[in-house]
């Protein structure tokens, strides 16, 4: 062991678990080998540092439990809202499609018939610009049945009587 490097030994086993024989062998070897002496010293410092680190312990603050319970409640609320969110989204989509349908029906019911009503007087006003003779003559053209002289005269006189 005196001629064997001890680096493997100190890396494989925690220093606290080294046996007495191991320690004697390490002592004997490090007297001759400066590399192993340095490694052993560094390993000792390393263990010492770790023990110092492990000895440092913190205690919970008096408000720790309250804080954890508050965080738990917050997380549960977040989870619940997350569970309901797809339903809310589906309901929103349904409501908006219903609104769109109602709006379409309203347009079809009120606005389009209104246009038809409005076009009625326009036609009548246009037709008013024609004289009775023209109407009768046009009608007679469309019907391709010639109006009799008596019909024409009656229409003219009726018109004049109204005026």
């Amino acid at each position: 062991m005196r001629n064997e490097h001890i680096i493997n030994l100190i890396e494989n086993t925690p220093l606290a678990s080294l046996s007495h024989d191991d320690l004697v062998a390490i002592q004997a070897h490090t007297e001759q080998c400066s590399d192993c002496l340095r490694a052993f010293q560094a390993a000792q410092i390393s263990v010492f540092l770790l023990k110092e680190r492990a000895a440092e312990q913190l205690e919970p603050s008096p408000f720790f439990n309250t804080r954890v319970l508050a965080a738990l409640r917050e997380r549960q609320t977040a989870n619940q809202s997350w569970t309901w969110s797809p339903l809310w989204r589906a309901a929103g989509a349904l409501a908006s499609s219903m609104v769109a349908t109602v709006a379409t029906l309203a347009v079809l019911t009120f606005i389009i018939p209104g246009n038809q009503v409005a076009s009625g007087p326009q036609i009548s006003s246009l037709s008013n610009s024609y004289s009775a003779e023209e109407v009768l003559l046009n009608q007679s053209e469309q019907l391709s049945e010639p109006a009799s002289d008596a019909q024409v005269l009656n229409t003219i006189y009726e018109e004049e009587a109204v005026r």
Partner: protein
Amino acid sequence: MRRYSPRVFRFASKFFRQRSLVEEAAQEVFLKAFTELGSFEGRGSMEGWLTRITTNTCLNLLRSAKRRPELTVSDLTEDETNWLDNKLTAAATEQHQSSERSLVASDLAARVLQTLTPDDQLVITLIDGEEASVKDVVKMTGWSESKVKVHAFRARRRMRKAIEKLLIREPGWNKSLASSRSSE
């Protein structure tokens, strides 16, 4: 929670020095425990179950923390440099231990540990710092025995090399070691 929080807190404080991080870890442990209480089958102890949750939570937090690639002599504070010098002459080991020196040592330990991987940090802290057995760490982490041993070996090597690198800055370090040994 009142019963177990001191234990969880003490366990988490082995891995984090900042109180805020320890609280964050402990809070996460209890939140997980509350939400996964149904998965606790009562086969083992509640303490063991919580220790396992704490170990995994601390490991996750260590993984998310920024890792220092390397610690150089220039990163050391004056106190840390003095501590190492004193350590070399064996003045700070058993003899002049003070709480202030412990604080410096603990700070230096945290800085050296930060150069290791999170898994290595966890294993070396538990085995070499806490003197936990390999089997204990296997229980806590759920890893295989060989994985724990490999991490312990690697962590010891990295830590030793990091410290050697800090010690080697002085050309006469060997002399101080020799003198410290002769005085023992």
